């Protein structure tokens, strides 16, 4: 049995879970190819006009499947207590039905962590029935999925690379002859740990930052939804471009405790899980003296970002932190982005070089005359 898993939206966050889950059930998972022009074009044709870029891309990826038995479109309602995902996630798969190629069927399941683990398991068991798997199988697969997800999240260090970790997961998935329970990811992390001196065995991103402090590179914090920051086709390779010129602090690399700490200043809790991460990380970058500037990556029509962006920009303004919002849509042009990026980086660099050097000489600083 082959299941098609579109490389869009929740792929960037929860693929490891589903990879582990289906791997344990002995079901082959096929991911759609990385986004390319045709996928985007197909998506634009089938998705509704008003929806946002990531969903249009999802519609494109759905159409990219060739010979799969099911297209897997879970309804991820919530991933932790007291939060939701975006309302558009809640409308999947119904809102995506127009994009399903004729003759293909959809496999879906509700995932609602608000109601606790038991409910999630129950819903997954319903899915299991559909796939002809027993309850015990589902339980086992569930715990393996969680384990893979945990390993994946643990591996998010300072120099973490999304593509790299996904490759590790896929490698683990294919090596079914190996002991299944431990994906190679963990071993990779162990290797890193082993290399470090024994005293710094508490491996934290901070320890890295101290090492790199001597370098002169700019440090830019990038915040935004994972399906935009890692979607290198849609964001016109922003991450790579940025990494060429500066050290990037990625929103996904900020660990949960830190996010939680920075969320405490809000009068009302944010109820979107992604937004919590974005706001918490954004606030951390604002407070972090080592971060020279912040780029907020959003897409046109994103409802949650329209609120959270305001909150983050408010914080950045308070601290006089350079801050830029990049809004993506299907018409984003490369030249425009590059120009803005360069201008921003130049600005940040100038600021770092000249910060605080305001001449105290003279009585007025009149730009129209060069006499005092």
């Amino acid at each position, binding site marked *: 049995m082959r299941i098609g898993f579109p490389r869009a939206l929740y792929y960037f966050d929860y693929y490891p879970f589903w990879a582990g889950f289906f791997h344990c059930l002995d079901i082959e998972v096929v991911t759609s190819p990385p986004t390319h022009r045709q996928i985007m074009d197909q998506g634009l044709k089938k998705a*509704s006009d008003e929806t946002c870029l990531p969903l249009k891309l999802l519609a494109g990826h759905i159409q990219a499947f060739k010979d799969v038995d099911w297209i897997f479109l879970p309804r991820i309602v919530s991933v932790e207590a007291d939060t939701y995902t975006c309302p558009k996630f*809640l409308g999947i798969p119904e809102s995506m039905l127009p994009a399903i190629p004729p003759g293909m069927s959809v496999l879906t399941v509700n995932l609602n962590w608000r109601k606790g683990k038991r409910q999630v398991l129950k819903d997954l068991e319903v899915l299991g029935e559909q796939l002809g798997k027993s309850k015990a199988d589902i339980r086992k697969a569930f715990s393996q999925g969680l384990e893979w997800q945990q390993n994946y999240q643990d591996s998010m260090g300072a120099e973490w690379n999304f593509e790299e970790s996904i490759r590790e997961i896929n490698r683990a998935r294919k090596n079914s002859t190996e002991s299944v329970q431990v994906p190679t990811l963990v071993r990779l992390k162990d290797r890193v740990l082993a290399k470090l001196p024994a005293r710094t065995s508490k491996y934290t991103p901070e320890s890295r930052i101290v090492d790199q402090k001597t370098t002169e590179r700019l440090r830019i914090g990038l915040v935004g939804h994972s399906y935009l920051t890692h979607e290198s086709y849609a964001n016109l390779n922003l991450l790579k471009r940025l990494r060429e010129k500066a050290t990037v602090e990625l929103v996904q690399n900020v660990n949960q405790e830190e996010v939680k700490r920075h969320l405490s200043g809000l009068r*009302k809790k*944010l109820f979107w899980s992604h937004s919590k991460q974005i706001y918490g990380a954004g606030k951390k970058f604002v407070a972090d003296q080592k971060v020279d500037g912040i780029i907020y990556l959003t897409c046109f*029509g*994103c*409802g949650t970002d329209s*609120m959270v962006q*305001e909150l983050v920009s408010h914080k950045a303004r308070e601290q006089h932190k350079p801050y830029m919002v990049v809004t993506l849509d299907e018409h984003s042009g490369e030249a425009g982005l590059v120009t803005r990026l360069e201008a921003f980086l130049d600005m940040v660099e100038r600021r770092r070089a000249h910060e605080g050097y305001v001449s105290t000489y003279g009585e007025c600083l009149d730009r129209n005359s060069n006499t005092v």
Partner: protein
Amino acid sequence: MKVTFPHMGNAWIVIQTLFESLNVEVVVPPFNSKRTLNLGTKLSPESACLPLKLNLGNYLEAASQGADTIVITGGIGPCRFGYYGEVERQILRDAGYNYEVVTLEPPDGSLLGLGKRIRFLAGSKNSWTKILKAMRFAYLKSVALDRVEDLIHAARPRLPEPILTEKLYEQARERLAQTMSEKGIQDTVRWVQESIRERQEAVNNSERINKPLRIGIVGEIYTILDPFSSVGIEEELGRLGVEVDRSIYLSGWVGSHIFRGIAPGYRSIRSYPRHAKPFLPHFVGGHGVETVGAAVKYAREGYDGIIQVFPLSCMPEIVAASVLPKVQEAYNIPIMTLIVDEHTGHAGIQTRLEAYVDLLERPRHLRESIETREGVLSVGG
């Protein structure tokens, strides 16, 4: 303390009543206008939805009348309205307005917290019985308002001289706003019924329109309840000879959102999720499911058309909008989607509405013309 609140259609009457019967000083902001929207748009994040922009405009205009406390309802998502209170507070503080924002919701699910907030607003003089009484009275008013609105919806296509109907509506709202007794509320509703009956009797039998087109309006609650943001779509349709029904009425929303379903309201919105089930089985926040459910309900009840209205980038309604084509297909009913934002022009909406109504009238005409053609052919044959 001077309390103010954002406008949403007729909601001001209800909220004003609530605070006045508790002897809390309340500032009703000037009605939504181009000025309100311009003021609000300047402060708002550009991609925020229309209600936020209008809300901020309301607060600014109310501030010039001395208001210092804002009351707004909340929610825990996933619609972004739930986060309005906090974002608006920060925006206003940034802009130099020293507003206290009270969000009427149980903070982190604590009813005690909600009680404290109500107590803060009502002051120490009002007893809980008095507060509950005031809430009940305000609720009765909202039900009466909805009844009046429904009567006006039915009267618009059937009575000549639309200006008189609008005047009647205006007067009824004024009376309802002023009355402070249950009898006054009932009398106003009766008065509206009587006036409509009188005028209807004055119309000749031959000119009487008995079966106007019926259009159901569904969509995002703020834009369908607030005539300014939907560019007066109901009035416009009424003038075009269409009877309008709406998926959500104020009291229905109050009943489910504030009273948590204890009071059903004039038109309960409870049945909608059931109708929506075959098309959208899961809630999507806001009123997305209600929109789909109401569309199905209207289609089943034999309405001629359905119009969905929502502000640009509204997340739940976008989901609903991508499901509605299936409803359109299943019930063979034309559904039009109108998206409004601060750039929406009256003429644009008017043209679209006229075209849409023409489209709905065509099947009726066609039926008649087919009959005549048969006649002609039979003569020719």
